[in-house]
């Protein structure tokens, strides 16, 4: 009997909107009064830690956590991932159509358990070869391990000269040892979208942001899931 080399132990999703927000307005009661969450969600939020203020609003229900700062809105899945996260973020942006939006992150993450310790180390060494580090610290005396790697994937071929683009779309893919799964790997795909906001009046950006999220959440989830799994396969295969 052969055992699978890895398994997905947990996954989650989040939607981040960078822009200008009034945190105090996005309370559980406000969202419920406008039909975006249910009364059971409000009860759940009030039973756990909740802050509603000018500088920060944060609360959690059974299925999501919400954090609003003056420059950022974050909605995280809790337990099972559901497209209701997408509906909630689209609903908020629909209710606040004049909100200036600078960028969107559709983020997905997963914790993979690696069956064999040898594969776990192979994965880290393939991702970050340790030769240059063992020239500094002898492998007879020290162990070099990979703690955090983020790779940015941008469209187009590698350019000859580097230019910082304010309005660019890209993916940041992060790999770390899992903090929740023993002998596990945490992978997160941050699907950043902001090119659509170039040359648009700030007051007109929220409806665009809502449409981007509605049109892209599912495909972003599918692509992130297949990328994360293929990455693990590539890193542990001989």
């Amino acid at each position: 009997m052969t055992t699978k080399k890895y398994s997905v132990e947990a996954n989650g999703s989040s939607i981040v909107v960078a822009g200008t927000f009034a945190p105090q307005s996005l309370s559980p009661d406000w969202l419920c009064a406008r039909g975006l969450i249910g009364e059971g969600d409000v009860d759940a939020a009030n039973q756990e830690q909740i802050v509603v203020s000018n500088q920060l609003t944060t609360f959690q229900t059974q299925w999501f956590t919400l954090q609003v700062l003056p420059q950022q809105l974050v909605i995280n899945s809790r337990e099972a991932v559901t497209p209701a996260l997408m509906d909630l973020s689209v609903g908020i942006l629909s209710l606040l159509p004049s909100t200036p939006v600078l960028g969107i992150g559709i983020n997905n993450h997963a914790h993979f358990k690696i069956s064999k310790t040898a594969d776990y180390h192979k994965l880290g060494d393939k991702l970050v070869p340790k030769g240059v580090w063992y020239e500094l610290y002898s492998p007879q005396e020290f162990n070099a391990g990979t703690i955090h790697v983020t790779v940015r994937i941008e469209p187009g071929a590698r350019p000859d000269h580097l230019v910082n683009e304010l309005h660019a779309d890209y993916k940041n893919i992060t790999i770390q040892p899992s903090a929740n799964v023993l002998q596990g790997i945490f992978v997160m795909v941050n699907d950043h979208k902001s090119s659509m906001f170039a040359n648009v009046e700030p007051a007109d950006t929220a409806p665009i942001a809502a449409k981007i999220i509605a049109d892209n959440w599912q495909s972003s989830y599918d692509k992130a899931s297949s990328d994360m799994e293929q990455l693990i396969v590539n890193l542990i295969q001989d």
Partner: protein
Amino acid sequence: MDSVIVSPNDSPLPNRTTPRDLSSRKVELRSSLRNKHLLELPTLAVQVSNERDLEDVSPLSMLAAHYFVEQPKVSPELPRYTAPLSAMRQLWEGTVISVDSSTETFEAALSPRYGIEPPVEHMAEIDLAWVSSQDSDLVKPGAVFYLTLCKVQSRGSVRDSQEIRFRRKPYWTAEQIRKLNQAAESLHARLPGIKRIDE
């Protein structure tokens, strides 16, 4: 070292840029300024080593510089699970076809959205007991819901779990409807000869 706050927003910035850094990027900054967004951004804090540095950089170029070097942060803090570990296995999108109050069930069409091979549609009869009480009012023909099947690990045990969550869309408030009607009337008044659809 002084800190100059160009706008009154007091939110902290993760990175700060010195004016000397900014002047070396003058060409790029000017091109960045063409975008109107830069003029609307709320916050800038720039650290300076002495007052002469301040003279080198106008507030506008500092504002542009900040957003030239800073992309909007759209990555969340890395999650740390306090709840049970949950891994999605399948995701279905359902549409309520009919509700039978006598049997306390509803009939639904299920479309595959993730993890279903082959991805074919199904009809299902679902017990209303699976719907949370806060969503029970939403169970009507045409209503859309999501059915998530997942593996849940908690305290050493592993179990299958399922969750039904109905789609919620924002209400139009009476005030919003009044304003829309007002805007429509105003537009209509400026279009002589155009008949209202309800006339």
